[in-house]
C-alpha cells in the first residue's frame, strides 16, 4: 500500500524497445540484447547498436552469472520509497557476457559481500506487472 510514509516503489519507466527484457524478467528469465551485425552484447537495451549503429538487434538468454564490480549497503537517508527496505544493497554487476547492470544483492549477509564476488541472478516481484532481476552470492 502507498501512503505518505510508504510511497510506492518506482517502477521501471520502460522504453518500448526494452519491453522484451521486462517480459522475460516476468517469466524469471534474464535476457540480453545483442547486435546481429557486430555480435556484441548490449545492456541496457538500445534502439540501435551503440557499437556499430546497426538497427538489427536481437535477444539471447543470459548466463545469469557475473561478479560484483562494486556495491554499497544503504543504511540511512534512502529515497522515500526505499526507507522501509534499509539495509539494502545496491551493486554494479559485471555479467559474464561482459556487460554491466545496476541491481540489488539479496539473500545475503551484507557484511560478507566483497568486490569481484561471484553472483547469480534471482528475481523479485515488484508488483503485478514487474519482476526485477536481482543477484545473490553464488553458492
Amino acid at each position: 500500500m502507498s501512503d505518505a510514509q510508504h510511497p510506492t516503489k518506482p517502477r521501471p519507466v520502460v522504453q518500448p524497445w526494452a519491453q522484451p527484457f521486462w517480459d522475460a524478467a516476468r517469466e524469471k528469465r534474464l535476457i540480453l540484447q545483442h547486435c546481429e551485425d557486430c555480435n556484441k552484447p548490449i545492456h541496457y537495451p538500445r534502439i540501435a547498436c551503440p557499437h556499430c549503429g546497426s538497427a538489427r538487434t536481437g535477444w539471447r538468454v543470459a548466463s545469469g552469472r557475473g561478479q560484483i564490480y562494486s556495491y554499497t549497503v544503504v543504511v540511512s537517508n534512502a529515497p522515500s520509497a526505499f526507507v522501509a527496505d534499509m539495509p539494502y544493497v545496491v551493486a554494479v554487476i559485471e555479467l559474464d557476457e561482459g556487460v554491466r547492470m545496476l541491481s540489488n544483492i539479496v539473500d545475503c549477509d551484507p557484511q560478507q559481500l566483497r568486490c569481484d564476488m561471484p553472483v547469480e541472478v534471482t528475481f523479485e516481484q515488484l508488483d503485478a506487472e514487474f519482476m526485477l532481476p536481482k543477484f545473490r552470492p553464488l553458492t
Partner: protein
Amino acid sequence: MSSNRGKTAIVGIGEIPTGRYPEQNAISFALDAARMAIADAGIAKDEIDFVIPTTAVFSFQFSNELTTCRLVEELGLKGVSANTTVFSGGSSSTNALRIASALIETGRARNILFVHCEKLGTGVSTQGGIDLFSTAGISMEWEVPYGQHYSTVAALATQRYKHETGTTDEELSAVCVSNRKWAELNPNAFFRKPLTVAEVMGSKMLATPLRAKHSNMLFDGGAAFIVTSAERARNLTDKPAYVLGEGGAVTHFAYHQEPDLTRFGWAKAGREAFAEAGITPADINVAEIYDSYPIFQLIAFEEIGLCPRGEAGAMHLHGDTWPGGQLPTTTDGGMLSKGHTGAGGSVSLLVEAARQVMGRAGQRQVPNCRFAVETAVGGTYMDAQVTILGNEIP
C-alpha cells in the same frame, strides 16, 4: 586541436556567502553576484553584450525566467544581444566558460556575464532534496527502481576505489578535513568550525563506506563571473585570469555504464587541458578540485596528474593539500564545507581559481599563485571537465 591558450580571461568575479536565506528570493542572489562581478571587472554594465545564466535546480519556473532574459531586465543591461542558459549540472560553469571563450574568440561577443543562483537550501525540504537527487541524472528504467541515489553513486565509486588502491577510510575522511581547513578561512563558506578525521569517521553511516560527513549538504547561494578577450583584460587589470587550457571527456549517462568507477574521464580531460595550456601538473600552484564527495576529489586529483594513483588520500591526510601545504587544494572549502548549491559547486570552484590567480583570495591567498587547475563534473560524474587558468600566458 588548435590552441586557444590565453585568448580570453575572467576579469571579474562576484559571490554571495553560501547559506540559508528563507526570506529571500533567489533572484536577489543572482543580482548581487552579477553586480559584484561587473564592479570587480571595472566595466560599465551596458558593456555586457551576452548573458549566460545557468539553471537553478530548485525551481523550473524560476529557471525559465532566467532563460527568458529576466536577469537582463532586472540588471537593466542595455547592450545585450543574446541571453541563453547553459546547463550541464555540476559542469555548467566549465561549459559556460568554454562557450563564452569561443564566442569571444570568434567575435560574436565582447563581454560575457555568467550567473548562477540556487535556493536548494531553503527552497526544498531535506527529504525533497534527497528525492530530487534520487532521479536527477539517474536512469528511470535501469537504476531508480533499485534505489540508486547520490549516496549510492558516491559509495559505489568509493568501494571500488578502496578495493583497487588500498586507500583507507581515514584518508577519504581527510579530504573533508583538508577542505574544512580552507573553509575556516573563507567568509563565504557555510561550515567553518574545525573538523577532525575522528569526527568524520564517527558520523552516521549512509551507504557503506560513505558517512554523513562525507556527504555534501544543499544550500542557497549565487556567483557570477565576466569573460572577455585577453586584449581587453590587459586594459582592465594587471592580473587577469587567462583561460589557458580546457579539456573534457563524457563517459556515461547511466552510472553503471561508466567503464571505470575509479577513474572516470579525468585523465583525458587533464591531458587535453595541460597540453593546451603548455604547462604540466608540476607547474600548478593551486588545485580547485570538484569534491561533492571525498572520492571524487581523490580520483580527479590523481587522474589529472597531481600525484600518482592511490597517493592522493595520504596527501590530504598529511597536510600537502592544506593551507601552507605544497599543493593547496579546493581552497574555497568545496561543496563539503562551503556547501553545495546545485550547479554552483563548480561555479564556486572556478570563481575561486580565478580569485587565486588574480591575487584576491585574502587569507586563503596562495603565495605567488601563477597557475590554477579547476575540475568540474555534472550528473553522476558523467563528463569530467578540466580548466587551467593563469595570470600569465606560458
